[in-house]
């Protein structure tokens, strides 16, 4: 018999492979994305789906990522933590993920738009930037 171990790392850990349960949310979500995309296609109406409020089972989230895939555009914003904006395999469907400085997700959305709102320069920022530029010129 080996002496009892005092080291936490000596305790064997094995992890269970996460199976994707069929909770049924993915199908419903895809249907909603399709419906919103149709509106965008017809009259330019944009839409947003908050992924935080949906009960995903472990693995389902990853499954959704796989299904939506990655398209042509990806962007990164640095504003009180990074934000990741990816156009999915379906143009007009964007996956917008906001992180805080520690790298935790603070908001996770699917945005259906030609361009996500957060990417656009905000008028106030434009104004402030202009002021700064003018100041630069006047120096």
């Amino acid at each position, binding site marked *: 018999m080996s002496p009892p171990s005092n080291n936490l790392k000596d305790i064997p850990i094995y992890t269970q492979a996460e199976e994707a349960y069929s909770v049924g949310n993915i199908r419903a979500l895809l249907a909603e994305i399709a419906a919103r995309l149709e509106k965008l296609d017809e009259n330019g109406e944009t839409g947003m*789906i908050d992924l935080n409020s949906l009960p995903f089972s472990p693995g389902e989230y990853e499954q959704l990522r796989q299904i939506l895939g990655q398209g042509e555009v990806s962007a990164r914003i640095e504003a009180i933590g990074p934000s990741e904006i990816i156009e999915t395999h379906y143009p007009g469907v964007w996956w917008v993920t906001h992180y805080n*400085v520690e790298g935790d997700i603070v908001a996770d959305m699917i945005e259906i738009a030609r361009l996500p709102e957060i990417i656009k320069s905000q008028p106030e*920022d434009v104004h402030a930037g202009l002021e700064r530029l003018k100041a630069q010129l006047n120096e």
Partner: protein
Amino acid sequence: MMDHETLGERLAQQGVSRRAFLKFCTAMASLMALPPGTATAIAEALIKARRPSVIWLSFQECTGCTESLTRSYSPTLESLIFDMISLDYHHTLQAASGTAAEAARETAMKENYGKYLVVVDGSIPIGNPGYGAHGGVSFVDHLQQTVKGAAAIIAVGTCAAFGGIPNAKPNPTGAVSVSDLIKDKPIINISGCPPIPAVITGVLAHYLTFGELPELDELGRPKSFYGQTIHDRCYRRPFYDQGKFAKSFDDEGARNGWCMFELGCKGPTTHNACATTKWNGGTSFPIESGHGCLGCSEPHFWDAGSFYTPLSAPTVNIATIAAGAAVAGAGIAVALGVADRAKKRRAQQAHEKMTVKDL
């Protein structure tokens, strides 16, 4: 400390871009379970909002609620929230102490009379004032003095909201909730042991954004967070509907992640947002970690029987009382049986033999 500039002015001073603020508002909207599109509107409102004065009172509590808030998964957001308010009194967080601290509280109350918010964590003992006092002032008096000029009270945690663990049987200190004592102020209960930090910040954000308290349920909790049960939003719900249950914590069902109703999960009767908001930076929540919900955001959750008794099972011993009842029933039956037989015997004794003359 008592400045009343708008949040927009303050953010501009700190060099926070409007885009960054919009991102923050998106996160806020997500927190408050508001439609994602409202982020812009929230930004518009918040930018103009004036920072309210907040007085935080701690009574019979374990500081878990404060821990929950300050260890919030998004320190940046939290700091933003604290930027939005003027926290003028908080035992754990303030630098000042003793009479200086109390003076700060009194000043804040005077200057913001009718406008300040009071946050309470912990229950209030009314059995004997000696169970808790601040600087010689009992908790009850302290609370009643402080809330006089408050616009609203936010009861944070199950102790402040419903009495919580101090109120559990036999409740030695006579602990009560804020709403048991204060009847003339709007009170918003943010229950949970501890409450979800995002809910605390979400409610503050809502108050700032809309200038009023959010819609509440019958227990005074914001509906946007407590409107549905854990069970309603649980990812294991389909297993409940299919009748697939884990029977123990280490059986096949538990490994398969089946429903833990039979292991005493209180998800069906517990109103909270854990199943979607989750804990520890969205990592998981108790059920996802393999343990049933304890029901901590409900009143008297500590006295609702074993955490491991299924909701459909009794919380009390039935067998003993049933055995006693059986004995009592037998006794009554024998007593009445004897009376019945006596009655029959009397009828037999009174029996007059029938003859043809009787016909």
